[in-house]
């Protein structure tokens, strides 16, 4: 196997670079830094090594080694359930829950990223192997393989970028009014708030948005409860929420206008700024598990007309 160092080492480097490029600990603080990031980096190195040894193993007629790839796939499925479990466990500690759909989406992303690491390493090793077989100098083969691998990393990164709410809908500021005890936003009932004190707080410190879907696909996607929960969670995280566990009155709730599919949400943020709220809602990811595309069928197209 040591004859294949020129394949294995560059492939592992590309694979690890690919994992690092997808390992961003941003405002979501997930994966959490430093321990979560560290374990994912380690898993990334493992999957990169698996991807890089596949071709040398075949070249050496070590077919048993290739079956390790299947084992790896199993391993990364475990990553998914691991992530899901850990997020499920911390869910009760969130003031505004992420929701199961969002958790599923995050878990899926972690699994997919490991496969991408493996694939970029595999692509790099294939390119280097082919070039060397074509009697091209090893140095050139390594450089070309490295560059193609990096190209694959960039392609994968673009390919897995998820849509934002801003891509499928328009977000506008909306008005909070009370109809008796009923909190309404732009005429859509949200919930019944009994305490007068809570109603006053909503009138003083509450801001609201209306999310207007661009087409029938967006209407179906925004109707999903998980997608709405993700929007609530994101808005609460980005703006801060004026709420504690014993104040269910102040939980942000996104409700749907059943007539036209618009979604409205009222929230009591720490930062009273409508523009920031619009930005926070617009930047929420469209969950894979919430996405619907009725318009890609005949029935959906005709129904939308």
């Amino acid at each position, binding site marked *: 196997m040591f004859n294949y160092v020129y394949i294995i080492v560059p492939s592992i480097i590309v694979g690890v670079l690919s994992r690092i490029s997808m390992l961003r600990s941003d405002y979501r603080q997930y994966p959490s830094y430093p321990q979560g990031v560290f374990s994912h980096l380690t898993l990334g190195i493992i999957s990169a090594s698996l991807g890089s040894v596949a071709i040398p193993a075949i070249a050496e007629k070590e077919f048993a080694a290739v079956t390790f790839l299947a084992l790896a796939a199993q391993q990364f499925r475990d990553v998914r359930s691991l992530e899901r479990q850990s997020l499920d466990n911390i869910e009760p500690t969130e003031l505004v829950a992420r929701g199961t759909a969002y958790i599923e989406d995050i878990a899926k992303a972690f699994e997919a990223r490991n496969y991408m690491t493996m694939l970029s390493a595999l692509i790099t090793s294939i390119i280097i192997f082919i070039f060397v077989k074509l009697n091209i100098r090893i140095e050139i083969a390594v450089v070309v393989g490295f560059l193609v691998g990096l190209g694959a990393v960039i392609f994968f990164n673009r390919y897995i970028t998820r849509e934002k709410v801003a891509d499928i809908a328009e977000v506008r500021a909306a008005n909070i009014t009370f109809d*008796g*005890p009923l909190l309404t936003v732009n005429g859509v009932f949200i919930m*019944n*708030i*009994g*305490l*007068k*004190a*809570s109603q006053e707080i909503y009138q003083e410190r509450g801001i609201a948005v209306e999310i207007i879907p661009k087409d029938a696909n967006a209407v179906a996607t925004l109707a999903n409860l998980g997608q709405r929960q993700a929007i609530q969670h994101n808005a609460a995280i980005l703006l801060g929420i004026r709420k504690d*566990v*014993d104040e*269910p*009155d102040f939980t942000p709730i996104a409700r749907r206008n059943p007539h036209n599919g618009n979604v409205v949400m009222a929230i009591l943020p720490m930062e009273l700024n409508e523009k920031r709220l619009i930005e926070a809602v617009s930047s929420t990811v469209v969950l894979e598990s919430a996405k619907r595309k009725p318009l890609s069928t005949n029935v959906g197209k005709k129904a939308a007309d």
Partner: protein
Amino acid sequence: MDVGFKENILAIITIDKNKVSSGTVPTFYAKDEEERERIALLLSKITMGMVHDLENGSYVIVRH
């Protein structure tokens, strides 16, 4: 395991005795709206429930 009442009416606070006849849900009578507000607030903090107004003089507390 987390055992508790959910989506249930935990308590009723009313200023109109004639509107409530319940054998199962704890009912609290208040002499005026001010006292009803206060009792509702205290109960909601104790039960971690949410106060809803039925607009007939009664409040109910529900945990969601």
